C-alpha cells in the first residue's frame, strides 16, 4: 500500500527495542576476555529461529484478514500437522516426504475451512472455531503419551545452517517474500484487497468474492502446514498442547503490523515487523525478569491498543470519505 502505512513507525520502534535491549541487558552482548562487552548477534538469530513458524503463520493470516476473513483453527492445525510430521518421520519416511506430509494435511484443512465458508456461506469465525476444537481433539487422540518426537534426520534439517542462516529462516523468508510479492503484484493479491475492503464493489466488477475467501483460507492451510514442518524440524519434540493461543498471537501480530481487522488494508511487511515486535517484547520481559504470567496481559494490551488505532483510522476514513469503508 505504502500510503501512510505503519511500517516506518514499527521499524523505528523495533530498532529502539533492540538498542535498549543491547544497552541494558545481556541480550546480544557477551563479555570479552578483557571483561568488556562485545556485540553478539547470535541471540537475535536464535530469536528469529524460534519465531520462524510464527512468521510463516502470520503471513498466511495476513492474507486471510486482508480478505475480510479470520482463521481461528491455526493453532490446532499447527499441532496436528506437526504431529503428522513427527509420526511419518518416525515411520522412516524420507525427509522431503516427511516435510511434504504436514503441508498436505494443512492444505486439506484449509480446503475444508474454505469450502465451508465460501460455498456453505457460514461465517469463518464459526467454521474455524469448530475446526479448532475438532483438530485439537484429534491431536490428543493421536498422541496418547502427550508428546511425540521426530526422527533425528528430520530434526537435522531444522538445525542445519546453510550460508550461516538456519533452514527455518530461509523457508520463512522465501515464503514471506513470495506472499508479499503476490499480495502486491498479482491479480489474486489485488482482488484480495478489493474483496476485503468492499465485497459489493468487487462483485460488481466481476470478481467473485467467495472464490477469494476460499483461496485465502486454502492458502492459509498451506502456510500452517509449512509452519508446522518448520516448527517440528526445529524443536524435534511435539507436545499435544502446542499451538494453543497461536491464533491470537498471529492475529495480534497482524493487527499490530497495521493490517485492518476489518480487511482491505495492510501489508505482509507490516506483519513481519509486528511479529518481530512481539518477539522483542517477549525477550525484554524475560531479561527484565517479569513473570511469564504477564506476557499474555502485555500482548493483550498491545492488541487492544492496535485495534483501537485501527478503529480510529477506519472512522477517520469514513468521515473523510463520506461512508468509505467502516
Amino acid at each position, binding site marked *: 500500500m505504502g500510503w501512510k502505512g505503519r511500517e516506518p513507525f514499527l521499524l523505528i520502534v523495533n530498532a529502539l527495542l533492540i538498542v535498549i535491549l543491547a544497552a541494558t541487558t545481556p541480550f546480544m552482548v557477551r563479555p570479552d576476555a578483557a571483561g568488556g562487552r562485545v556485540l553478539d548477534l547470535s541471540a537475535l538469530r536464535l530469536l528469529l529461529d524460534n519465531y520462524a513458524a510464527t512468521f510463516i503463520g502470520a503471513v498466511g493470516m495476513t492474507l486471510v484478514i486482508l480478505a475480510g476473513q479470520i482463521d481461528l483453527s491455526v493453532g490446532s492445525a499447527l499441532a496436528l500437522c506437526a504431529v503428522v510430521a513427527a509420526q511419518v518421520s518416525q515411520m522412516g519416511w524420507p525427509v522431503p516426504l516427511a516435510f511434504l506430509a504436514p503441508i498436505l494435511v494443512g492444505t486439506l484443512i484449509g480446503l475444508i475451512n474454505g469450502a465451508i465458508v465460501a460455498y456453505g456461506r457460514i461465517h469463518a469465525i464459526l467454521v474455524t472455531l469448530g475446526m479448532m476444537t475438532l483438530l485439537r481433539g484429534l491431536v490428543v487422540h493421536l498422541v496418547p503419551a502427550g508428546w511425540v518426537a521426530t526422527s533425528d534426520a528430520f530434526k537435522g534439517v531444522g538445525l542445519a545452517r546453510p550460508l550461516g542462516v538456519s533452514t527455518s529462516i530461509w523457508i520463512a523468508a522465501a515464503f514471506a517474500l513470495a506472499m508479499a510479492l503476490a499480495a502486491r*503484484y498479482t*491479480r489474486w493479491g489485488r482482488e484480495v484487497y478489493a474483496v476485503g475492503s*468492499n465485497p*459489493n*464493489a468487487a*462483485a*460488481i466488477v466481476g470478481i467473485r468474492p467467495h472464490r477469494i475467501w476460499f483461496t485465502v483460507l486454502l492458502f492459509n492451510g498451506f502456510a500452517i502446514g509449512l509452519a508446522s514442518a518448520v516448527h517440528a524440524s526445529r524443536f524435534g519434540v511435539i507436545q499435544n498442547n502446542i499451538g494453543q493461543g497461536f491464533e491470537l498471537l498471529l492475529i495480534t501480530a497482524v493487527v499490530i503490523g497495521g493490517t485492518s481487522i476489518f480487511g482491505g488494508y495492510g501489508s505482509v511487511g507490516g506483519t513481519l515487523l509486528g511479529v518481530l515486535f512481539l518477539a522483542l517484547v517477549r525477550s525484554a520481559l524475560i531479561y527484565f525478569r517479569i513473570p511469564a504470567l504477564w506476557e499474555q496481559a502485555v500482548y493483550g494490551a498491545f492488541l487492544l491498543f492496535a485495534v483501537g488505532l485501527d478503529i480510529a483510522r477506519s472512522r477517520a*476514513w469514513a468521515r473523510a470519505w*463520506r*461512508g468509505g469503508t467502516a
Partner: protein
Amino acid sequence: MDAPLLALRNIYKAFPGVQALAGVSLDLYAGEVHALVGENGAGKSTLIKIAAGVHEPDAGEILIGGQPVRLQGPRHATALGIAVIHQEPYLFPTLSVLENLFVGFHPRRGPLGLVDWRAMARRAEGVFRELGISLPLDRPAGELSAAQQQLLQIARSLLQDARVLIMDEPTSSLSQKEVEILFGIIGRLRQRGVGVLYISHRLEEVFALADRVTVLRDGQWVGTYPISAVTPEALIARMVGRELTQMFPHTPHPPGEVRLRVQALGRPGLFEGISFELRAGEIVGMAGLVGAGRSEVAQAIFGILPPEEGWIEVDGRRMVPRAPWEAMAAGIFYIPEDRHRQGIVAPLSVRANLTLAILRRLARFGWIDRRAEDALVDAYRERLRIRVADPEQPVGTLSGGNQQKVVVARGLATQPRVLILDEPTRGIDVGTKAEIHRLMDELAGQGMAILMISSELPEILGMSDRILVMRAGRLMGELRREEATPEQVMALAMGLTSNGGVQAPEAR
C-alpha cells in the same frame, strides 16, 4: 379555526453543495389529510426530517399548536406529538408485537418499577379497537406482513399520543386490499382529530385521500391547493414547470443493430414484464420516481439481482445472467448508483480501482503487467481528465466528481458493448457533470449502446434518444426524443393515463 397542529414557516435548509429547501411553508390542521408532492429531489424528505426533529432548519420557524418550538431531536418531536411512519418500518423483528408497541416507554408499576404487562395489553387492545384492526400481540414483529408492520407503527404512535402523523410513501409495499384497509384507518385517524401529512408518488391516492395538497419543486414552495381546485394534470405541470436552461451535448445518431434485448424480465415483488431493446449508438434514458424499480431492472440485467423471469439477449445471444461476471463476459457493464457502497474501493489507490475489472486482461500467469497497467491508467486519466496528483493516492481522498470518473473509467476499460449508467451524475459538480455527458455522447457516437437511469428530468430529456418510463415495477411507456416533454414523462411516472384519468394502483 384553531391554530394548526403543525406549521412550518419559511423553512430554509442547505446541505453541502445543495440548497435542499428555500422558503417552504406548510400547515396541517386537526382532522386534515395534507398531501405533499414533488419530483425526486424536490425536498420532501428534507421537509419531513425537519418536522420530525432529525434536521434543524437553517432559517424559518416551526410551530406546534401555535407555539413556536425548537426541536431538539427526534425524541423531542415525538414528545410533542409528531410521529413518522416510515416506508421501511423500524422495528425489532425478534420482539413480540406488544413489546414493539411499547419499546422505550413501557408502563411501570409497583415500588420496583416493574414493567406492567397487563396495562400494556389493555392499552394495546384499546388502540386496536379504535383503529378497527387486530394484531396478534405475542407474535414476533418480524413475522408480520409489511402491511401489519405499518399498522403496528401507526398503533405505536397513537399510544405515544401522536397528533401529527407523517406518512412517507406508506403504500409502496402494500397490496390493493391492504391499501384500502390503510385508507379506512386514515379515515378514523382523521375523525379522531389527528392531522396526517401524506407523502406519495401516487396521484390517485392523493386525490382519494387528501383535503389539501402542497407542491414542492427544487426545494421551493410552489403552492398549496384545496384538492377540489386542482386536476392531476395541473399538479404535474406545477411539479415539473421549470425552464430547461441547461444545455446537453447530445447529437442523435442513426441507431445501429440491436445490442441488448430484454425480454419479459421479472423478479416478483420488484418488477415484472420488462421488455425493451437497446441499439448500438443509442442512449436510452430510464425515468421514473424513486422506488419504481429502475435500478433493480439494471441490476437484474447485470446479474446482481438475477432475474427470476424472462431473459436478455446480448448481440443475439440469449442468456439469464446469474452474476456480474457472466454479464461482463457477454459485454455488459454496469456503473452503480451508490458510489460508496458499490463503486469505489476507498482505501485502494486510483490505479488499483481503475484496473480492478480488467486484472484478468492485465495479468500474465497471474502477475500484473505493471507497464501495461500504467499506460492504461495514464490513458484514462487523460481521456476523462481525472484530477489526481498521484495515481497511488487512495481513491477515497478524491472529490466526488473525480471518484465518479474513476468508476466510469473502470467501466470503459472493460470495453463494454452495452453500458448501463445508474444516476451517473448524482452528487457531482456541474463541470464534471458536463464532462460525463460529453463522454456519453462520444461513446454513443462510437457505437456503444447506453442505458442511463436518471432521476433528473432535464438530464433524461437532454441526453436520451428514447425514454423508457417505469412505475411500480412496470414499464409504463416509451417516448421518442422529439415527442417527449417533462409533463409526459411525469404523467407516465405517476400513473396518469392519456385520457386525463388516474390509473388505479395495481396489486403487487
